[in-house]
């Protein structure tokens, strides 16, 4: 079994329901996110559009975080999920530095690394991840990539030629796919970031740990 995720960006409307569901399900502390939706505005008024991109751990086949973790706190499960053992983590932040997707953060409450686990605890009880359940337009598709009859496999087969992963040049082989993605949505360097500017607040960075 190899579990994977696919997001159809054509369907996503940026409601952030997945973000909230993830926060509630996993008790993610304030100021941190296992899953977040990025908004990017493209074009010049009046010819403008807004894109929405849910971002979470990519559960890479060749995960840099698993490789760099000195205590195997980050480890593979048999179903392909890159899981984290917070009791073992020493908080060296090597994984945060290694992850090319910025998917790992230091939990301010436990002072250990944390990230999306594809809701491994729900999977173990044969339930879908919380974000999948919450999505009102079924933009999140989750399933077994090794099973040709699973929804995700069918979706990939149907949309061949229009499937993307983030930063393929890193050689991480992500198990998280996008449909209808592009440079603006998937490449963080293709969009301008105005310091201090955001739709809802002016916070762009937050301190982590106790050294700042």
């Amino acid at each position, binding site marked *: 079994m190899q579990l994977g995720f696919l997001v159809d960006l054509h369907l996503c409307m940026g409601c952030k329901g997945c973000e909230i569901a993830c926060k509630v399900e996993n008790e993610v502390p304030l*100021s941190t*996110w296992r899953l*977040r939706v*990025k*908004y*990017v*505005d*493209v074009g*010049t008024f009046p010819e403008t559009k*807004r894109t929405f991109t849910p*971002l979470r751990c990519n559960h890479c086949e060749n995960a*840099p975080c698993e*490789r*760099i*973790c*000195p*205590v*195997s706190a980050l480890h593979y499960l048999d179903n392909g999920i890159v899981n984290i053992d917070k009791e*073992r*983590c*020493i*908080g*060296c*932040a*090597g994984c*945060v*530095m*290694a*992850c*090319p*997707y*910025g998917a790992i953060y*230091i939990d301010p409450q436990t*002072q*250990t690394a944390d990230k999306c686990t594809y809701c491994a605890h729900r999977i173990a009880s044969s339930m879908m991840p919380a974000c999948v359940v919450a999505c009102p337009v079924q933009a999140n598709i989750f399933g077994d990539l090794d099973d040709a009859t699973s929804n995700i496999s069918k979706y990939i087969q149907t949309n061949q030629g229009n499937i993307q992963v983030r930063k393929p040049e*890193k050689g*991480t082989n992500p198990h998280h796919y996008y449909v209808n993605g592009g*440079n*603006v949505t998937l490449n*963080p*360097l*293709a*969009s*301008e*970031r*105005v310091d201090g*500017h*955001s*739709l*809802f607040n002016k*916070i*762009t*960075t*937050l*301190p*982590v*740990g*106790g*050294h*700042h």
Partner: protein
Amino acid sequence: MAAHEILAATNAVVTLDVALPGTVWPWFVTMNMWAKSIGTGVIFMLFILMRMYPESVKNLRLPTAITAFVFINIFLLFTLADLHQPFRMWHIFFYPHFTSSITVGAIMASVFLGLLTLLVFLAWKKQDETYDKVFLWTTILAIPVTLYTAALMAQCTARELWQMPTESAQMILAATVSGAAFMILLGGSKLTYEAKQTLGVVLGLSALMAFIIYMSEYVFGPMKAEEVAFTLEYIKGDGPYTVMFWLGQWMTYILPMVLIVLSRSSKSEAILKLAAILALVGLFMVKHVWLMIPQLLPMS
């Protein structure tokens, strides 16, 4: 393609991306690298001096071992302090994961510290013959100990700027620069003028090589990788680390090289010591800039 050209072409602006972690590895890690460079560097220098000027370094066995012991302890202390769960440090030894250079480095550094402790004891007891035997193995182990941070940086897939083998070359050169500089200061009246001049040559040539590598990355790095181009923008123009970068380059490499030439022509030990002090202070800045700028890059 330069950063501004990419942005102009897409005309895209991130209007909402929730708050992201700031600097994850702060100056504690800079201190880690700086102290480790000195701790291993003085061992390399004593090794050279023992073969070139055996009579001159008789009284340097104990001071060198103590210096290395102190700086390796500083390195380990700041490594520990940088952990968010420092009291779980023992997990590294009881749940080791050997694909991680942190694990391998921690084990090697611990053995290295053990050997340094033994050297201090042997030097204090004036058992020079045994000291020299242990010292050989200590010198050999100092090589991977100083290199492991380069391996760690290379394992940080997200930080394109830190490439192998460039980082390993820079780590070794940082050790020879700081080791030679510290030994010039430590030598005092114990070292002959010729021995100090040799250390000056090591310092000058190491500085030259390190400077060439940095400039090569500065000029040619952006031509190969988009992320490197964006990262180096932070030390170009009015970038947040431009001043610190150039101050570091001048203090660590350019000025010491000039001063060493001047000290040789004027036979001045004072100028040589000034070069050594500048190199030691500047190295901290150089390392800090290179540590910080890849962390400023947006990952999402």
